[in-house]
């Protein structure tokens, strides 16, 4: 197990370095707007402090204003040289100290970006987690069925659809689904996570699922076909391999034989599933924006519209962190699921 542990440590460290580099890149690209946002905040906060200061003589007023401004500028580190501003901001972003938002607030009116972001995260995880599970199950089922009857109707459908759907923007299908199934035929809610007022208890959970149904339906019906085609090919290949023939020759039941096949294709299938999940997570801005789903993507959509830089940076770095964590996990899972490529050969 030791080689695996050191391998894991290595991969994770690599991921962390990548994450820091990306945060640095964001900090460089968005340095100008972030500076402007902070300067605007300096003026705003100084103005507010002066308003509450009461009546002052002009000289006192000027002195107070200059003092306050200097203090704020120091607080926001706007007096530092460019390079250190960029570096410090990259570190802040990397460590999730996003500061306060400009316009977007959390449900409770909080303007801490971190709490806004953390409020949105569960919705994204719920939607895309469910999607990933459904895609894996349905995609696996379709793939196996297609492989069992190669050349059959399902097989032909499964061979064409990935290519068709590859050129199809998911969010556009979402728009169509929304138009048709939420407005023309009002079967599903048109957005949000809950009806207003929110039902309590179990009814609330059902309501949440009901609101999730349409985005979920769109995502699953589109994303199902790539994994299905992969599974179909893998199963088709594997079914002809010697160890499967041998298992069958041993007199194992078809069910047991199928387990052999599943074990053999597990690493590739897991890779595909996780990569698919990461991909749809990266596209969640548009999908959540269209469906009004208040997850990270929906928040990003709102932050872009309102030009809220701290929120933008916060969501971006969180998305990056999730993406990198997923890729590292993928790497490790691959090693773990497929003993043949485990380094050190301890298995």
């Amino acid at each position, binding site marked *: 197990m030791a080689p695996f542990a050191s391998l894991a440590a290595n991969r994770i460290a690599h991921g962390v370095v990548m994450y820091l580099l990306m945060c640095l890149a964001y900090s460089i690209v968005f340095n100008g707007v972030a500076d402007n946002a902070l300067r605007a905040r300096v003026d705003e906060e100084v103005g507010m402090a002066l308003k509450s200061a009461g009546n002052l003589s002009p000289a006192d007023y000027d002195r107070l204003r200059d003092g306050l401004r200097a203090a704020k500028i120091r607080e926001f580190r706007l007096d530092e040289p460019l390079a250190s501003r960029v570096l410090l901001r990259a570190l802040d972003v990397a460590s999730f100290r996003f500061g306060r938002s400009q316009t977007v607030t959390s449900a409770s009116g909080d303007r801490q970006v971190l709490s806004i972001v953390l409020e949105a995260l569960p919705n994204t995880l719920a939607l895309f987690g469910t999607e990933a599970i459904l895609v894996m199950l349905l995609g696996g089922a379709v793939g196996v069925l297609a492989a069992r009857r190669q050349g059959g109707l399902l097989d032909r459908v499964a061979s064409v659809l990935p290519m068709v759907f590859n050129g199809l*923007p998911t969010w556009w299908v979402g728009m169509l689904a929304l138009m048709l199934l939420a407005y023309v035929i009002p079967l599903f809610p048109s957005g949000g996570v809950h009806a207003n007022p929110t039902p309590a208890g179990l009814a609330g959970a059902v309501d949440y699922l009901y609101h999730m149904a349409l985005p979920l339906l769109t995502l699953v019906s589109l994303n199902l076909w790539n994994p299905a085609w992969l599974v179909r090919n893998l199963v088709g290949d594997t079914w002809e391999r010697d160890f499967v023939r041998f298992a069958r020759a041993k007199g194992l039941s078809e069910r047991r034989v199928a387990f052999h096949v599943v074990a053999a294709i597990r690493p590739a299938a897991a890779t595909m599933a996780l990569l698919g999940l990461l991909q749809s*997570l990266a596209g969640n801005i548009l999908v959540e924006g269209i469906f009004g789903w208040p997850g990270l993507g929906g928040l990003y959509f709102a932050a872009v519209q309102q030009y809220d830089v701290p929120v933008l940076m916060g969501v971006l770095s969180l998305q990056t962190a999730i993406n990198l964590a997923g890729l590292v996990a993928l790497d490790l899972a691959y090693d773990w699921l497929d003993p043949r490529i485990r380094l050190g050969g301890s298995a």
Partner: protein
Amino acid sequence: MNAFLASRSARVGLVILALIGLLALFGPLVVPFPGAVTRWRDISYWEDNPAGAPPAWVSGPWNHWAFPPTGRAKSSAPLVREGTAGRLETWDFRLAGGAPSAGTPSAGTPTLAPSAAATAAGGSTSRPRDVVLRVPGGEGRAFLLVREGGPDSPGRELYRSDVDLVSGGSLRLDLPSVSAAELTATMYLTSGQPEPGPPTVLTVGRSEGLLGTDADKRDVFTGLVLGIRWALLLGVVVSFLTVVSGLLLGTFAACYGGFLGALTNRVYEFFSMMPLLPFLVAVSAIHKPSLWSFAGLALLFFWTRTFKTVYARALQIKSEGHIEAAVLVGAGRWWRVTRHVLPELLPYAFAMMAMSVPGIIIAEAGVSLLGLGDTTTVTWGQMLHDAFVQGAVINGMWWWVLPPGLSIATMGLSFALVGRGLDRVVNPRSSRR
């Protein structure tokens, strides 16, 4: 080439692509509103169209021609009466699509719902329609009176006022809805002015062209055809550049190695691990890009897709027998790369170029959907942005939402088909059926 053409899907892809290419080149000649090339965002260019109207073919006997197209009214020669102080011209317009008026037109208040008798008679005359009157040219003022009905059977008055004529342009009057089949416009012109041209009357339709109009009265079909060129240009240029850079960098990293090779690999990792769309969106939101700076950004990310394949393949080729033989006969590294490795990789590159186009078009459409596209052009993503923002989804305006997405899908599919056809030729083992 023959093997490529032998596959049916590749042929289909090529045919669609050829059609798309023709439309991109000759689009301005076939669209009903060629001026849109430069005036897509110019409201005055579109002012005569109905807003948010469905396609013309929606209208038919099945709904009693409920969605008539925009029509120009025909006018008989004017009745002219010269006076001492000026001249009185009376124009009689037959509204397009209307049955010839029989007797006195209804002079009462216009009914909102079409009367059953009129629709049964085959005329849409009693259906209230928006009417626009235009007086081109002229200078100074004129008196204008517009009534329903013919000159001998005056009906409801629609307009009565002095108007300022617009020299070099035209005076445009939105009249109240009309249910009659005939209009009479009377103009009193004082002598000595440069005279205005003959007035025209337009019945604003409830449907427009092949694919209807958007909420800003723009013709969807025109936008669709004009969008082809940008999608095609962006897709082809960016995919060409990304594949070429991916090919060169991948070959370089595989064949030269060393510090620079390792560095290239790290850079690859960096860009391939960064979430593409959020970054594109953030940069576009802050720096308001043109189509070309978007192309540059896309280039920064999309080369990684080719790089990975090329790198792996180049490593393989490098250790094959014929390369070692080349080493033995004294071929230098430059020779080996340019004469052996790159030629073997080129076919892959063509397949990858075709296959990377859809992703680029979708990425541009996605950024445009957020309203962050280049505002000097019309792209499909921007049409969908307008549609989403202006309530096409809520109001079920399918003619505005469906066509741009279908175009993206069709173009993506045709490139994918061609790419797959190429891939089968260069990589026979990958064809499974």
